[in-house]
């Protein structure tokens, strides 16, 4: 995507070159209260979505794992225990504030030694070809300006046989659930954002960005187009969230 092309920032149309800065501002603003807001917004269910992602990764001792848009390090913390001292987990995030919160949280929790922190753009991942056994990106892909480019970048650095896991908000399976979810995310989320993080706009962006994100089948076709051999997905909590699992041939 060229810099003068137009893309979405929530429902707003912005220049591609502008989106990254706008998204960065959102995450600088919410970083400090990110975990608390996630627990409140999802009623703690985001922990189960992440758990299922880790279980689907089939990570094993000694593996190299990249946690893109790793934020406050929920996945990295679990992966660090699984891969052990012979393995390596890299927590990457484009946003320095989120990375700092994640690094502090992990270090304070005694998780160190096999974890590295890298500030990186998912579209241009600074790692060698065929390097990682597993790559995860949880609630991060919808914020990326050029998703196709990011998926190609992930494909390049994944080892043959390695797996990519994309955990992201998606399209509810039933219309009724969709309507309830719309009411919740467009009315209640900004109020909660204002009350807890003193930032209604960022949570309005969250709701809008979810609606603009590709649905399950579209994302699957994008993953396959990026070069992955196979891609399947599981809808979770009625499709509010979907986990796409892709294998590199």
């Amino acid at each position, binding site marked *: 995507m060229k810099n003068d092309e137009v893309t979405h920032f929530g429902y707003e149309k912005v220049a591609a070159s502008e989106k990254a800065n706008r998204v960065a501002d959102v995450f600088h603003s919410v970083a400090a209260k990110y975990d608390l807001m996630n627990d409140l917004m999802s009623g703690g*269910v985001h*922990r*189960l*979505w992440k*758990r*299922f992602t880790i*279980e*689907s990764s*089939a990570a*094993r*001792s*000694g593996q190299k794992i990249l946690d893109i848009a790793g934020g406050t390090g929920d996945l990295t913390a679990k992966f660090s*225990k*699984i891969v*052990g001292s012979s393995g390596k987990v890299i927590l990457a995030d484009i946003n320095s504030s989120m990375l700092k919160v994640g690094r502090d949280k992990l270090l304070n929790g005694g998780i160190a030694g096999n974890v590295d922190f890298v500030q990186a753009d998912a579209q241009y991942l600074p790692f060698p070809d065929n390097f990682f056994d597993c790559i995860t990106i949880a609630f991060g892909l919808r914020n990326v300006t050029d998703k196709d480019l990011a998926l190609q970048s992930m494909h390049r650095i994944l080892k043959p*046989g390695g*797996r990519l896991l994309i955990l992201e908000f998606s399209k509810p399976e039933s219309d009724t659930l969709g309507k309830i979810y719309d009411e919740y995310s467009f009315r209640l989320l900004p109020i909660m954002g204002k009350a807890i993080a003193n930032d209604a706009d960022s949570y309005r962006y969250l709701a809008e960005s979810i609606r603009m994100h590709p649905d399950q089948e579209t994302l699957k076709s994008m993953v396959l187009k990026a070069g992955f051999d196979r891609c*399947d997905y*599981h*809808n*979770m*909590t*009625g499709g509010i969230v979907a*986990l796409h699992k892709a*294998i590199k041939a």
Partner: protein
Amino acid sequence: MRIDPTFYALISEAFEKSLNDALQYDPGTRAKLRELDGRSLAIVIDNMNLLFGVLFQNDSIQLSIQPELNDEDLALNDVVLRGELSDLVTLISKKHSLANSGVEVRGRVGLLESVQNIAKDIEIDWEDALYDKLGPILSQPLIMFLKQSYRYVKEVSANSKQIVSEYIEHESELGLHREEFKLFSEQVDSVRSHTDRLQARLRKLQAKMEQRHS
């Protein structure tokens, strides 16, 4: 019916936490688990399309449930137990032998044996666990109550078998004594073999008669 994976994650989380919390009060088992560090086993239920994963990490256990089966996931495990739910339940609860159990085993069978031995010797210090969770004031009377209840249940269950059999034999005259039953069984067997022989002779005679008429 398709079950939401969020539910599977909740189940595995709850089991894993309970199991590892309990193991905190069994240092012996934890020491044995350390020897299995990095090893994994999978239980595949074919008729439910479910994969239960067990990964041994240092002195704890990580559980997982996957609602899909694929060769890549299975190949990652050191040992795989695979079969229908009923066969797996029978194997785990009753049978000790895999032969004719309907369950297929692939990989390191030795790991399965090690896990079985560890499970057999689990000895969780429940008193210590209750003490930690409830504190001294609540835990002491509860431990006393549980110990007395356990003793009572054990005594009752040991005596009940004898009481019930004596009641059936002597009081209600519904049942037979072991020796009487043995004699009765022998007589039934003898009658059965006589009738079998008689039936065979009748068949033979019938065949002869049919031959003459033709």
